[in-house]
């Protein structure tokens, strides 16, 4: 399986994008599935309450069935079934679930797919979801080089990971830090600080020890988390 989508550019510097495999895809899909199910249920409850002043899962009598269908059933079904195509077009290849999973749909040339391609991609869910639980789609993502489901093959799209360009910073580290410990180590140290709260204390201690070089962490087992963090921050200043 290919890991990266490499797109040549006229600048001579290729655009490189990490391809999302079956795991990343499934993660995004599961989030989206829950969101659309919750939204549809929320509409069903709110719609039925607004229409009848009480929560009913079906129209209480035949005289109200048409209104109930148009106010409750049809909009809730539309939310559930049109969630993917509508949001992918509106959010240019993303959905809330894809955003949370850090993935987006692009064409093989790295650009945003047009509405036609996104519609095709979603219509082919009819085949990808066969015979149930997306067995066809999941199998093809496991077997194809770029982890594509049939909808992606039909539309010429691929799912890639994306990092938000929003929080761009070289950190508080100065050039002195780079000169002292090297660019690579500076980057690793800043990455560690970024991920500090998400790591287990033992992992933090080990990594901090490697960065601090003199095995400060292992040399002084009494060093607390806070002290280790302070030492790394001092190193970057």
């Amino acid at each position, binding site marked *: 399986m290919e890991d990266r989508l490499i797109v040549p550019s006229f600048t001579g510097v290729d655009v490189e994008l990490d391809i999302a495999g079956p795991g990343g895809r499934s993660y995004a899909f599961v989030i989206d599935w829950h969101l659309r199910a919750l939204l549809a249920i929320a509409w069903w409850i709110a719609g039925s309450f607004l229409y009848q002043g009480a929560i009913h899962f079906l129209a209480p009598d035949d005289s109200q069935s*048409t209104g109930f269908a148009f106010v409750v059933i049809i909009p809730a079904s539309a939310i559930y079934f049109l969630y993917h195509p509508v949001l992918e077009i509106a959010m240019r290849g993303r959905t809330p679930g894809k955003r949370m999973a850090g993935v987006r749909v692009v064409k093989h040339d*790295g650009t945003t797919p047009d509405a036609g391609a996104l519609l095709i991609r979603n219509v082919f869910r009819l085949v990808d979801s066969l015979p149930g639980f997306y067995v066809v789609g999941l199998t093809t993502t496991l077997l194809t080089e770029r982890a594509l489901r049939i909808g992606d093959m*039909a539309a010429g799209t691929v799912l890639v990971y994306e990092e938000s*360009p929003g929080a*761009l910073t070289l950190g508080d580290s100065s050039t002195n830090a780079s000169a002292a410990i090297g660019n690579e180590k500076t980057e690793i140290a800043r990455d560690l600080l970024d991920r500090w709260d998400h790591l287990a204390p033992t992992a933090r201690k080990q990594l901090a020890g490697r960065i601090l070089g003199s095995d400060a962490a292992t040399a002084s087992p009494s060093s607390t988390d806070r002290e280790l963090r302070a030492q790394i921050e001092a190193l970057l200043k």
Partner: protein
Amino acid sequence: MDEATTRRWLERRLEMWQQTGSDVQRLEQGGSVSPEVALRTIRAYPEIARDLALARRVVPGGRATRRLEAIYAGLHRALMRDPVASRLHIVDFLARDLPAAVDSLKRHILWTSALFVACCVAGWWAVASYPELIGLFAAEEMIETVHAGELWTDGLLNVMPSSLLAVGIFTNNIVVAMTAMCLGVFYGLGTIYVISLNGLMLGGIFAFTARHDLAWRLFDFVCAHGFVELSAICIAGAVGVSVGEALARPGNSTRSAAFQSAVRSGGQVILACVVFLIGAGIIEGYVSPNPNFSTASRLAIGLGYWGCFVVVLSGRAIRLRRSAARTQIRR
């Protein structure tokens, strides 16, 4: 260039990267941007490319490099994207793309329609010869109603209002059309199955109603919406068969390219069919079950609507408008 110098240089570029990053975010959110922002973004593309090339060498996989990769990918998406669809695109689609797509499907439409008609005849023959086979095509309740000398469509409006009926019908027809197209990925066999089954059902049900002298009444019900509905299903089948053929016989293209091209071209035709199927559903909900419409008026609606369908799919609708506009200019 030593590491500290490179780093100092990269730090000096930080402001520009941040500016470009926020420009990219604005561009990706859509809407209009000022000419200054657009020009600044265009100028930033080669500059970011150069910075990225350097960052990849100095701090491969580093945080700054990853962020630069994201900005560069965002710039690439923003600058290389297709133009936004406008009214002109819709006119072009109706005047050029759609007729060209339909033209390329002519052979498939002919064969799929022939298969559908052949299956109708086969269904008719099968049920006319062995009436018990109707159980394969129709529900028990439907059979009982016909045995009682009535059509299941009689009094349909007493069961369900027109609006709801129309929504249910066009949703179902759109799903059938899309399924016929999508099942083409199984080398066209899935599509052939869908078309054959629909043909057999139609022929079988007509034969069954004919045995009870109800065929004319069934035709009376079907004629207002049926011409377009059946044509659209046949065309969706033709798209599915063309998708299957692209996979089986890709010609000079790669299999993947041929598949994409067939889906892309066929998808345009399906889009037009979907619009007409919505109309057919509305007719089926409001006109077909309404006893106040005479057979002549139903036929006029059915044939008139089918005429519109043919005119739009052949691109004549736009050509007629353009020639009318030219005549007016000459005057």
